[in-house]
């Protein structure tokens, strides 16, 4: 177990407890701890506190943890797949596809029978359809090579964004533009316990698979010919990575919108800390991504009370300078000459 993981694990627990205290009504740490204890066989606490901590805030904190970890892991996987340091989880058109689905739900009212789940369902459907399209076109044009994937993903992303913008533009609903914008920039405000299981299960499965293939991923990061010479079934691995990231990112976007920068910056940060081997860098990226997004969400909740800032606003403000600092480091050269 790498040293960093043993540091980050307790830090994750601490983050959950501390972050759960923040909100419209700040709660002292001991209240949060008591409320959690009350749930696990300790002395019961005031129902009001129990409701705030257990029903409202904890799912949100945990969703932040899962989404942040998922985006960081997906970002690392996509960066390895396309061997490009500027790749992020949304490169493959998943998020803009999701935005078409979500926009269709918001502006056209499709899927309204699904009630509260309509937005997530619309986004997930859009995300998966978009991935199928990117996958199909890339395969037809010569396979899932990095160049093909980057070009196809970028071009189709632009097209999907146009469709989403068109839907907003022609909508009669004046609120639509703002709802869509808020969704696109990401939020954890809809978090419930029921919403947690799908992203958690998807993340857990993806993480286990990526860790099992970590040797192959290391070889692929060095180059496709090297990987093939080392016995890695390169086309199958690429297909697997594509499907895995598409499903993972699709689910994450469906529950939290298009949160930017986490999936771009955190993989770099973790490589910088523990080196480029996936076995070491994936767990660090996951934990750091989770911790990062939980605190981003805290900042988004308390910065301009009583309104909430979309998460991408905060991740962008923190992420941009961090990324510039990373790029400025000469010793770090993932995927290209500095």
């Amino acid at each position, binding site marked *: 177990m790498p040293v960093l993981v043993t540091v980050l694990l307790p830090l994750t627990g601490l983050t959950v407890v501390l972050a759960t205290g923040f909100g419209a009504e700040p709660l002292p740490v001991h209240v949060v701890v008591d409320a959690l204890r009350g749930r696990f066989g300790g002395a019961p606490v005031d129902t009001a506190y129990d409701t705030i901590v257990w029903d409202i805030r904890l799912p949100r904190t945990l969703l932040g943890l899962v989404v942040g970890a998922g985006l960081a892991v997906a970002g690392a996987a996509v960066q390895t797949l396309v*061997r490009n340091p500027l790749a992020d989880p949304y490169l493959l058109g998943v998020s803009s596809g999701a935005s078409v689905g979500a926009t269709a739900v918001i502006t056209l009212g499709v899927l309204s029978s699904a009630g509260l789940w309509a937005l997530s369902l619309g986004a997930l459907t859009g995300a998966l359809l978009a991935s199928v399209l990117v996958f199909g076109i890339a395969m037809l044009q010569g396979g899932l090579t990095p160049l093909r994937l980057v070009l196809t993903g970028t071009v189709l992303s632009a097209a999907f964004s146009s469709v989403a913008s068109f839907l907003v533009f022609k909508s009669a609903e004046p609120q639509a533009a703002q709802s869509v914008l808020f969704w696109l920039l990401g939020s954890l405000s809809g978090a419930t316990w029921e919403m947690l299981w799908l992203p958690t299960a998807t993340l857990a499965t993806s993480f286990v698979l990526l*860790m*099992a*293939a970590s*040797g*192959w991923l*290391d*070889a692929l*990061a*060095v*180059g496709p*010919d*090297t990987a*093939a*010479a*080392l*016995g*890695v*079934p390169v086309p199958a691995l690429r297909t697997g990575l594509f499907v895995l990231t598409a499903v993972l990112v699709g689910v994450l976007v469906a529950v939290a919108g298009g949160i930017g920068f986490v999936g771009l910056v955190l993989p770099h940060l973790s*490589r910088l800390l523990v*080196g*480029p*081997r996936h*076995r070491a860098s994936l767990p660090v990226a996951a934990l750091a991504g989770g911790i990062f997004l939980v605190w981003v969400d805290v900042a988004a909740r308390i910065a301009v009370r009583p309104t909430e800032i979309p998460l991408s606003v905060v991740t962008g403000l923190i992420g941009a300078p961090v990324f510039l600092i990373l790029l400025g480091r000469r*010793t*770090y*050269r*993932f*995927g*290209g*000459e500095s």
Partner: protein
Amino acid sequence: MTITESRVATTSVLAASGLACNAGKRTVLSDIDFDVRAGEVLGLIGSNGTGKSTLLRVLAGVRPAAAGQVLLKGRPLSSVSSRERARQIAFVAQEEAAPSDLLVSEMVALGRVPHARAWGGIDEASRLAVANALRLVDLEYAVQQSMDRLSGGERRRALLARGLAQEAPVLLLDEPTNHLDIKHQLALMRLVRRLCQTLDRTVVVALHDLDLAATFCDRIAVLHDGGLFALGSPDEVLTPSVLHDAFGVLATRVRHPLTGRTHLLFSHDEREIHP
């Protein structure tokens, strides 16, 4: 003039049978037939663009054959799983595109990928293979350095070490002496010979330096004009006539005054030799 060996080697480790190779969509080599015998160093020579790297890639199973097949101990290579293939054949390409911030030890340890189980960490056998490979290429001092910090020659040796760590009986090397100073060129070729003699490896090595090829290879295959132009011992193949046809140069064979070995001297200009 074409010299080909018809003797069917019973100890053939790797063989090309009616092999054709594409670079992109263009067929650069066709009708290639030869055996690589167990324990030999087979040199692959030819002028730029004759398809040495392409042939090695196809022999390594990294790229598919355009026609015909590669046989690994008599089995079609295409029917061997990629993992099993990588345990039998180690391929060290000429250049690796992306610089990498892996440590030297981590890069060499990638050679253990075909032996590793999912989830399995580095076991004792792997640790030993990595240390041994680093020792063979004389790079133990750089274990903890980043690949980026290495000189061109050290990089080449690290990549060779990765191939050695694979512990495959067949080693395919694409211009391994590139970027190496003369001392390390000779050391590397001596190592290649030693691998064959003492560790039972079989090596196919693409070389630009014909004199190195003459000195260290058991047999030499000359690629020219889209096919196998000549195959045989250095003495049979590295003749002024073959070299003139395949490379367009004028070669003279001379005897080394101290070692007695045959070496090659070259000239491009007819008038220099026959004034």
